[in-house]
């Protein structure tokens, strides 16, 4: 499972989500397990999930694309950077689940080329169209884009609150581009600009890089030295989530 967590950390902001589904019926036991393993990946309890995906034994894993189609099946150990990079290369905006009225062709095309700001504007203009079908389709597209906007805002909020400024910046930059002309995009652009030039951002990036440099060396180091390097990161970059992680790791070395 450690490699799942690693891939999750590395690719979550790029649009890859890990989802571990189980039919274990004891939710409290599952909760305990997640807490004990400090499992930071999506875990869901789904009764009869084996039957639903017709899984042939376990563990089995699947790659599912943006439209909900299976693009890979294999052993969880098969998950690696190469596989994920390949998926990312072909990643596109999800297709609209149904065909919309011709009046919305432009907005739908904007949506499918990830110009969400333009798609939103296009849909908004047709919300009061004289034809009922066009109004319904406009509302449908509008809701989809607003849903996306809401999810992105939530993701940004999570990173902001946890202090992962290094992860927040690319997210803001992407939203500023994709939601062009929308107020949210303007806010994102403003925040991104401010963040990029800030001391806090630099500190967070430096902490991340420093920890990434030290982490693979830890096993080769003497416990005393490993603890020392980690404690130094925790002290030098205090206030960043990476310093917290370093402190936790240092604590674990002591045991």
């Amino acid at each position, binding site marked *: 499972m450690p490699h799942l967590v690693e891939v999750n950390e590395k690719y979550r902001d790029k649009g890859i989500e890990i989802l571990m589904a189980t039919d274990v019926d004891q939710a409290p036991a599952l909760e305990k397990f997640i807490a004990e393993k400090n499992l930071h990946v999506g875990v*869901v309890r789904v*009764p009869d999930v084996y039957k639903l*995906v017709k899984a042939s034994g376990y563990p089995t894993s*699947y790659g599912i694309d943006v439209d*909900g189609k299976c693009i890979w099946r294999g052993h969880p150990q098969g998950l690696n950077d190469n596989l994920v990079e390949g998926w990312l290369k072909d990643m596109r905006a999800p297709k609209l689940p149904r065909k919309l009225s011709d009046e919305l062709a432009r907005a739908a095309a904007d949506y499918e080329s990830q110009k969400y700001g333009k798609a939103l504007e296009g849909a908004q203009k047709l919300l009061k169209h004289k034809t009922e079908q066009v109004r319904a389709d406009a509302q449908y597209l509008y809701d989809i884009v607003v849903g996306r906007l809401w*999810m992105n805002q939530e993701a940004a909020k999570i990173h902001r609150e946890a202090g992962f400024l290094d992860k927040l910046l690319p997210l803001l930059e992407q939203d500023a581009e994709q939601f062009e002309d929308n107020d949210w995009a303007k806010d994102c652009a403003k925040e991104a600009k401010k963040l990029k030039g800030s001391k806090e951002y630099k500190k967070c990036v430096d902490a991340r890089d420093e920890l990434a440099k030290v982490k693979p060396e830890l096993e080769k180091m003497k416990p005393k030295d490993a603890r020392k390097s980690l404690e130094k990161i925790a002290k030098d970059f205090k206030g960043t989530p990476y310093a917290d992680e370093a402190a936790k790791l240092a604590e674990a070395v002591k045991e």
Partner: protein
Amino acid sequence: MKALVLFALLALGCSAASAMEKGDEAPNFKFEHSWNTLPGAKQLTDYRGKIVFLEIWKIH
């Protein structure tokens, strides 16, 4: 014991024939409980727009 293994293999073979394959639409399923999932996600289709690595697992 041998019979048991054979039976297990047969059972595996049968279910493998109809398992989700590349190109198939993933079945939608609702989450009864969820941890660390996307904000607001209640079922698999709420992950549309993301590439999902789905692992079916059991606690050993």
